[in-house]
């Protein structure tokens, strides 16, 4: 890591964050902390403010005044995080006029890195991302899973302590998704970045995470923070083990409760 850091303070800390869009309160009293090197997953009912949380941590949206945001132990505004976390949105958002390599080095190019050096580095990373031989292909020539891997490669190449992944596998079919999950863990164990990962898939959240955060219905806050003390590396069969099922049961109960709440309140509004 480029800057020395107080080992005891978490990499990212949010305390009592609110965010309102017009009349809608998306997030209320949101508090969470992400220790360095941890893989934290976030699940919750749809429309619970997960994306709002991500946009704030990515620096794209400023939270309402009142809450506190700390990054590397220092209080900061959201906008100061622009360029300091590597963000991967739901859709791959590859640029159709750039080939695989040039899409992968987009963030490095924006930072002002030398293109030749960045390309060489990306070329060496291709095998790890299962893209060997595809460096000169364009996005429209790739499958959904491959496009997602290019987007992940772009995120990894933008070397920041904190990686934000917003449902990166949401658009993939179940089989490809499970392969990509194991592959992501594999890559992550070698690179050891801190990860904040949004998903609506409870299995995915438990399988990947060191800790699962369950969010409440809107306005979003953290309802439950559950450590996942399952050994790594995690085999595919893990999802059927009793320990896994026990965690899943607890999380599902919490989500169920929140989904009912949002269902009832929207039912009353209509």
């Amino acid at each position: 890591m480029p800057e020395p850091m107080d080992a005891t303070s978490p990499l990212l800390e949010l305390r009592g964050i609110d965010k309102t869009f017009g009349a809608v309160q998306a997030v209320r009293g949101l508090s969470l902390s992400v220790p360095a090197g941890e893989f934290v997953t976030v699940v919750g009912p749809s429309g619970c403010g997960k994306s709002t949380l991500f946009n704030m941590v990515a620096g794209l949206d400023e939270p309402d005044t009142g809450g506190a945001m700390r990054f590397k132990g220092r209080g900061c505004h959201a906008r100061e995080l622009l360029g300091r976390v590597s963000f991967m949105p739901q859709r791959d958002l590859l640029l159709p006029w750039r080939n695989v390599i040039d899409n992968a080095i987009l963030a490095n190019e924006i930072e002002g890195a030398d293109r030749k050096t960045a390309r060489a580095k990306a070329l060496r990373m291709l095998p790890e991302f299962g893209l060997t031989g595809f460096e000169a292909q364009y996005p429209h020539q790739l499958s959904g899973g491959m496009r997602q891997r290019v987007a992940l490669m772009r995120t990894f190449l933008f070397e920041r302590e904190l990686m934000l992944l917003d449902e990166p596998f949401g658009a993939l079919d179940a089989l490809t998704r499970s392969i990509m999950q194991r592959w992501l863990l594999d890559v992550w164990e070698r690179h050891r970045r801190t990860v904040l990962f949004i998903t609506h898939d409870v299995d995915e959240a438990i399988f990947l995470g060191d800790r699962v955060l369950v969010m409440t219905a809107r306005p979003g806050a953290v309802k439950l923070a559950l450590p996942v003390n399952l050994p790594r590396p995690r085999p595919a069969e893990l999802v059927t083990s009793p320990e896994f099922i026990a965690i899943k049961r607890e999380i599902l109960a919490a989500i169920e409760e929140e989904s009912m709440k949002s269902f009832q309140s929207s039912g009353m509004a209509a």
Partner: protein
Amino acid sequence: MRGVLGAVLIVLLWEGSARGFALPSYTLPAVSEILGGIWAQRADLLSGGATTLLEALLGYGLGTAIGIALATVITILPWSRTGIMPVVMAVNSVPVAAYSPLVLLWFGIGVSSKIVMVTLAVGFTVFLSALAGFDRVDRRSVDLLRSFGAGQASVLWRLRLPAAMPLIAAGMRVATVRSLIVAIVTEMLGARSGLGWIIYQAVVQIDFVQVWAAIFVASAISLAFFGLIGWVERKVIFWR
């Protein structure tokens, strides 16, 4: 192939009806007669065509540059939109040709007044399509680049401009034909040379074969220009 067949059929029909009904040349001269006229007047048509093409190309280049530049300014400085757009829309609400008497008065009957007119016509077309292209850029892509620390200029260069290219190119393709039309129409209102001027003179002299000859040359140039830009468009915007 079907296009060629259609064109041949039309020419044959034209030739047949002009000769078969023995139509006088002020109604419709036969195609062969027009082609003969083109050959007979080749020196005049060549220099006239060169003048018109020069006006159209210069105006086209200037108009494209100004159109894209203006759209870029509005995109970078959103507050300037409310100042610029009403003026642009007011000027553009009248056919460009309506301004030609004024432009002829201001810039004389030489080449420069035609270049100004073509610049205006092409400028509007490209400006509006470029603006639509810039506006259409996916908000999430902009956010992604911002999260990488990209500033306005970087977002414009790496995202907005290439993303707007398909629409800009479509505008530029439409503008090719407009550039020649406007050059010729302006020439007909006052000029020293050019295809429009040849048409005007031929009408005054009641030489309708020559009118048609100039029209044929003008549409050949126009088609070639349209085809060239279309070809470049397909090469540049390969990802569609």
